[in-house]
């Protein structure tokens, strides 16, 4: 892996040499980068603040954990040089890099591992502290050796360790997490203006390979058009994760820019409240599955960008099953039949959507298609996040909604009976539990079984997988294509 | 032929795209000559002046020739640049409205100085400023140096008009045009300003064109008079001759109607029978359906007032004290206003509208109240009509105490006491039909009956029934005042309060309305309270007059007695400022 990064680096250096546009007047390579992003972080503390915006900016850039996900979704070592797992899957021995320091100068040791991970249970309120529940104890073997003992085998916890909860903190710099994060990563935060920008500077004392880009500005936009305009006018160099795909085509024909299409973990989901009167009958949910022409939804609302998935599993997960996309082909007649079978006529459903562009666009198509099989969708646009979270997510006061689930490997959470989808299948839950404790091969098998069952029972209509499309100046190299994790890994980008 | 006339106007025609307003008038003014231009509203007299100045509104066009000193080319076709050189320098103008004619945001001294710097930039600002102060002194403004630093709103109307004069005379023009220069001023101030104008133009040998509707004004200042009627000059002659022996029928009627002391054999004022008001449909007025008995009209009421005056620092006097049950009885009436502003903690300054006023009005009396603006006469009128409440004192009208009375208690009072207002434009709601306006004071009367009574009442004031369905804007000023009177009388009130009821009317119409009012007061046996600034009108209409000044009644008594032998200095001043026609004629011819 490191090798591959190194290759890119070398290649980019060579390229820089003959690219006049990207060098400064003195012939120095231009190592500053401005990235346009949409969701702005409210603060910089992801231990207590939810949302993808903070990890997107900080994880792998400012903060690091023992392991990370590479761009293909593989778990690779980061602060841990290597690790071994006991045969029963309960004891993990991590060998740590030596001589690593936090950006405030304090050393990173096995003590830091113990401190950081133990802190999660009591002090974290956001970003899934429960992910570390499997940990029974943490032992400091030496400065560079840490041992983590699990209470039961878990396939998911190491994956989760690559996310925010696995972040290594130093005890000396906890005072101001919200504005002055201190980590071991290749960048440090040099300024942060809420709603406007976050400026990162290369960490000169970084223990690993110093990144090519020394000054990175993350600029936050509220409007996708403003974002693309900024790229077109040269204000920014890169848009990671464009959200309105009609804006993409103009870049394809423009040689000044490159369009990178990758896979995300964002399943755009037509959720049905399984616990509501309207959708408690599986046949009604299946009727909806047949009634929706997912390709048409994707074409209209997403300018055709995306991938039909049919389940809550993106192709980057090992238990992805591409055949599920065809489980419910578009078949209005079948839908009408199912509805008749279920004894439902003149069905009117409360379709409460968040006020997000893709949802508003998608809902119009869905409403139109449902109408063709006799289902009236009463569309209410709710303010996101505030009102949508209250009404739909917390109070479950809805029949149908449309929202993207962007967290990686979130299918287990979706299946929980208390979750807003109201899907209650003890069998599926048992299978997930079993899978987590099983060996690696069985794990994938069981996960596949559970997710297939969910698709068959139409727990929700996973319309399509949102594509991860990045738009960049043509001379940028190493732009991460996929977004398997929440992080936007800047360390690979070069000119 | 001697020297050329200062102003020569030949065949001046002014018209809008729709009508012609001036029908080719011609006149000359010799150097130093003082000429009056007299006419009623809309006769075209102001248009004449604005044409000469080249300040006609863009929508109007003028033809003919206007030349200054005979030398210059036609002013009507002269370029803007040439006109600018003449305006304010060779010819100057004073306008009617002293309140709005000065820039409110500029000190008056600077405004006077400006006319000099505009025409003589070489003389310098400092000199202009000094000269401005001198000019302010010449127009007899007190403390000219201080006044020069004042803003217009800090000056009274008369003072502002003096500033306008100072400005007009600054460059010693050869021609001064004054458009109704004193109309908006109080009588006593008017006399002073006229005298000032006369002196200024005589001293400098400036030719004067003085435009006015008031013969008295012309008689005061001018040597020659032009009479305008419907866009034509109908008479041109020396003031004395025109006043005493008018040639044109219109002039004859105008002068007759202006003379409030001359009545016909029925005790009625001379009205103008010329088709002055050619209104669509409406009846022409007099003689109205009421055939008042001349003798009855002149019957002196049983109560006769004592002639009293307020002594300086003397005790409050109860004027016109009546025995029995007077229609109106006012004792110790004071009204103060709290002016807006004042300090954060300091009380707002108090303005005294009325101070310790006591008087009676006997049943059937015609009681005049005369005073200048700000004297408190309007406040008094408002209190008598229960439109305002006294600060202290008692007011008793027809046995009803109105100080502190609630609207419910006043219900009967409201139908017993009615008002006729001054402004014929503002006293009728433009959005209502005449029938609704006249019927408004009626209460608990069926629609049919109301209409019948309205029709009868309109007939009584000399208007046809078909006016009922029209809106006020379709009537002339005199007709509107008739409608006002009809409204006031429809409830058969016992007391009628008239507030400057004829002040806004042209002379000709004034006489008609006064006659009508006199007739109706007799017909309905009304007690009349007539408030006015015009001593002449009151003298004609009222048997008793109270002179009010600075919130106090300073003198009260039988009208003739007060007029002929004024006791209070203020009354004396007032009387001498409003000469009768005979007096004027005497002054002019002597």
């Amino acid at each position, binding site marked *: 892996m490191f090798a591959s990064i190194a290759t890119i680096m070398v290649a980019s250096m060579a390229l820089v040499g003959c690219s006049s546009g990207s060098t400064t007047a003195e012939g120095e390579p231009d190592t500053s980068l401005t990235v346009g992003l949409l969701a702005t972080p*409210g603060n910089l503390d992801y231990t207590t603040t939810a*949302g993808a915006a903070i990890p997107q900016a900080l994880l792998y850039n400012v903060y690091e954990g023992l392991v990370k996900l590479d761009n293909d979704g593989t778990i690779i070592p980061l602060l841990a040089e290597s690790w071994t797992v006991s045969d029963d899957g309960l004891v993990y021995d991590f060998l740590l890099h030596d001589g690593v320091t936090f950006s405030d100068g304090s050393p990173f040791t096995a003590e830091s591992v113990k401190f950081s991970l133990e802190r999660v249970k009591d002090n974290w309120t956001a970003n899934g502290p429960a992910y570390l529940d499997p940990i029974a104890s943490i032992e400091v073997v030496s400065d560079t050796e840490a041992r983590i003992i699990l209470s039961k085998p878990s396939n998911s916890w190491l994956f989760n360790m690559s996310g925010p909860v696995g972040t290594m903190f130093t005890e000396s710099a906890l005072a101001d997490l919200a*504005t002055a994060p201190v980590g071991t990563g290749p960048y440090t935060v040099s300024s942060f203006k809420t*709603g406007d920008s976050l400026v990162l500077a290369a960490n000169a004392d970084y223990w690993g390979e110093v990144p090519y880009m020394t000054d990175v500005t993350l600029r936050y936009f509220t409007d996708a058009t403003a974002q693309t305009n900024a790229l077109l006018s*040269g204000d920014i160099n890169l848009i990671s994760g464009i959200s309105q795909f009609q804006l993409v085509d103009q870049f394809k024909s423009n040689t000044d820019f490159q369009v990178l299409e990758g896979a995300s973990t964002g399943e755009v989901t037509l959720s049905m409240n399984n616990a509501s009167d309207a959708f408690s009958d599986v046949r009604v949910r299946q009727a909806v599955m047949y009634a929706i022409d997912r390709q048409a939804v994707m074409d209209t609302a997403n300018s055709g960008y995306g991938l039909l998935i049919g389940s809550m599993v993106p192709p980057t997960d090992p238990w992805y099953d591409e055949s599920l996309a065809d489980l419910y082909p578009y078949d209005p007649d079948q839908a009408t039949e199912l509805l008749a079978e279920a004894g439902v006529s003149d069905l009117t459903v409360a379709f409460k959507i968040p006020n997000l562009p893709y949802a508003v666009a998608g809902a119009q198509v869905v409403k139109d298609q449902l109408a063709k099989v006799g289902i009236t969708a009463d569309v209410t646009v709710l303010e996101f996040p505030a009102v949508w979270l209250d009404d739909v997510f917390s109070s479950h006061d809805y029949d149908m909604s449309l929202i993207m689930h962007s967290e990686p490997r979130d299918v287990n959470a979706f299946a929980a009976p208390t979750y807003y989808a109201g899907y209650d299948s003890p069998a599926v839950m048992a299978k997930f539990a079993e899978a987590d404790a099983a060996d690696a091969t069985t794990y994938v098998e069981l996960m596949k079984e559970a997710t297939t069952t969910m698709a068959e029972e139409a727990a929700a209509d996973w319309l399509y997988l949102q594509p991860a499309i990045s738009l960049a100046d043509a001379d940028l190299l190493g732009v991460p294509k996929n977004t398997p994790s929440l992080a936007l890994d800047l360390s690979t980008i070069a000119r | 032929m001697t020297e050329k006339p200062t102003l020569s106007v030949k065949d001046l025609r002014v018209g809008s795209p729709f009508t012609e307003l001036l029908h080719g008038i011609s006149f000359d003014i010799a150097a130093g000559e003082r000429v009056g231009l007299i006419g009623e509203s809309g006769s075209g007299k102001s248009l004449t002046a604005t044409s000469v100045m080249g300040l006609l509104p863009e929508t109007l066009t003028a033809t003919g020739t206007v030349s200054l000193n005979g030398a210059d080319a036609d002013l009507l076709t002269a370029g*803007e640049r040439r006109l600018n050189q003449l305006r304010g320098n060779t010819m100057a103008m004073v306008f009617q409205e002293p309140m*709005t004619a000065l820039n409110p945001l500029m000190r008056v001294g600077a405004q006077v100085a400006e006319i000099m710097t505009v025409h003589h930039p070489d003389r310098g600002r400092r000199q202009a400023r000094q000269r401005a102060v001198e000019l302010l002194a010449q127009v007899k403004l007190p403390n000219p140096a201080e006044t020069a630093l004042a803003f217009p709103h800090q000056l009274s109307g008369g003072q502002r008009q003096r500033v306008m004069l100072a400005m007009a005379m600054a460059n010693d023009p050869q021609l001064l045009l004054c458009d109704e220069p004193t109309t908006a001023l109080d009588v006593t101030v008017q006399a002073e300003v006229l005298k000032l104008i006369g002196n200024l133009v005589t001293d400098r040998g400036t030719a004067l064109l003085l435009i006015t509707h008031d013969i008295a004004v012309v008689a005061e200042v001018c040597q020659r008079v032009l009479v305008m009627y419907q866009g034509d000059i109908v008479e041109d002659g020396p003031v004395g001759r025109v006043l005493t022996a008018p040639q044109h029928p219109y002039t004859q009627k105008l002068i007759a109607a202006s003379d409030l002391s001359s009545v016909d054999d029925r005790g009625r004022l001379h009205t103008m029978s010329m088709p002055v008001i050619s209104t669509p449909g409406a009846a022409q007025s007099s003689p109205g359906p009421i055939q008042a008995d001349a003798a009855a009209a002149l019957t002196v009421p049983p109560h006769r007032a004592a002639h009293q005056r307020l002594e300086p620092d003397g005790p409050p006097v109860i004027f016109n004290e009546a025995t029995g049950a007077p229609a109106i009885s006012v004792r110790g009436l004071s009204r103060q206003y709290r002016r807006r502003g004042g300090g954060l903690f300091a009380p707002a300054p108090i303005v005294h509208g009325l101070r310790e006023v006591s008087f009676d009005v006997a049943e059937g009396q015609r009681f005049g109240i005369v005073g200048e603006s700000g004297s408190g006469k309007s406040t008094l009128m408002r209190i008598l009509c229960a439109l305002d409440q006294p600060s202290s004192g008692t007011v008793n009208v027809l046995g009803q105490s109105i100080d502190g009375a609630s609207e419910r208690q006043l219900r009967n009072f409201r139908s017993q006491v009615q008002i006729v207002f001054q402004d014929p434009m503002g006293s009728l709601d433009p959005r209502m039909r005449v029938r609704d306006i006249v019927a408004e004071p009626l209460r608990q009367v069926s629609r049919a009956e109301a209409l019948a009574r309205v029709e009868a009442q309109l007939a009584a004031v000399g208007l046809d029934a078909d006016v009922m369905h029209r809106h006020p804007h379709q009537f002339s000023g005199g007709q509107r005042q008739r409608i006002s009177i009809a409204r006031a009388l429809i409830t058969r009130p016992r007391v009628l309060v008239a507030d400057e009821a004829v002040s806004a009317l042209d002379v000709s119409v004034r006489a008609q309305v006064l006659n009508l009012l006199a007739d109706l007061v007799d017909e309905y046996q009304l007690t009349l309270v007539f408030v006015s600034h015009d001593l002449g009108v009151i003298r004609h209409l009222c048997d008793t007059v109270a002179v009010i000044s600075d919130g106090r009644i300073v003198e009260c008594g039988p009208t003739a007695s007060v007029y002929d032998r004024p006791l209070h200095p203020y009354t004396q001043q007032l009387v001498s400022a409003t000469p009768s026609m005979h007096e004027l004629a005497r002054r002019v011819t002597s």
Partner: protein
Amino acid sequence: MVLVVLRRMGVFATTVVVASIVTFLMLSILPGNAARIALGVQATEADVAAQATAMGLDRPAVVRYLDWFGRVLIGDFGTSTVSRQAIGPEITDALGITVILVLTSVVLALLFAIPFGILTAVRQRKPDGAILSGISQIGVAVPGFLAGMLLVTVFAVTFRWLPAGGWVDPGENFKEFLEHLILPAIALGSVQGAVLSRYVRSSVLEVMREDFIRTARAKGLGAGRALFRHGLRNAAVPVMTVLGLQIATLLVGAVVIERVFSIPGLGSLLLDKVALRDLPAVQGIVLVLVVFVLALNFLVDLAFTLIDPRLRSAA
């Protein structure tokens, strides 16, 4: 004069207090649970309840109001529930940006509106006056954000002369600050300029009918000179009223342009904070906006007193 100012200030203080109560009451019924938003979708109900207590959301309204407004009076707007920072500086920064933007646009608007308005008034009956007047009419009818979008498309995207958006503090890099300011200020100013020019026009037309202008003409001042020396100051009074009102509406109204140009102004901050249900911040922003407007009206009133001697002594 001093007393007048003192009295007005007293009234001003009272209105501020009332406005703060209105603000508080209006926002106290905001739906959406700030605690839930802070913790995200994975938090349990118990966590959310504990968070709510920690954020002081469970105290009675009167206590919360007094606590809040009492602190505001000593300059403490509280701590944002989202950024965990003092709100005051956040608001000041955003307000500064918006004020710069609004004032620049108003200056641009005035630079356009005064000559244009006077011209259309003076040439009222001429064909060119009618055409110019028509142009300003159309200017009024164009939505501001459309103007902004078109400006970006032309000058930023197509010609790449200017940045498409964003903000640079003047202290940071003045040249870049100006570059970032031009387009949004023009977008905001063009519509305002069109609106203002209509007011200038009608105000000048009205003043040209005044008697004192006729007096000035009678003095021998040409029409233009009479208008300049006597008319404009008088015409300024109603225009200033409109200007005050415009600036007041623009403080929030600029949000549309701020969105088009991704400028972190006060309106944008408000929208963001409302979305995040950052109640202390929202209260603070709304209060600042409202007080700013009240203060502006207060100043406009005082300015009138300076321009117009009649008000000076009448009060």
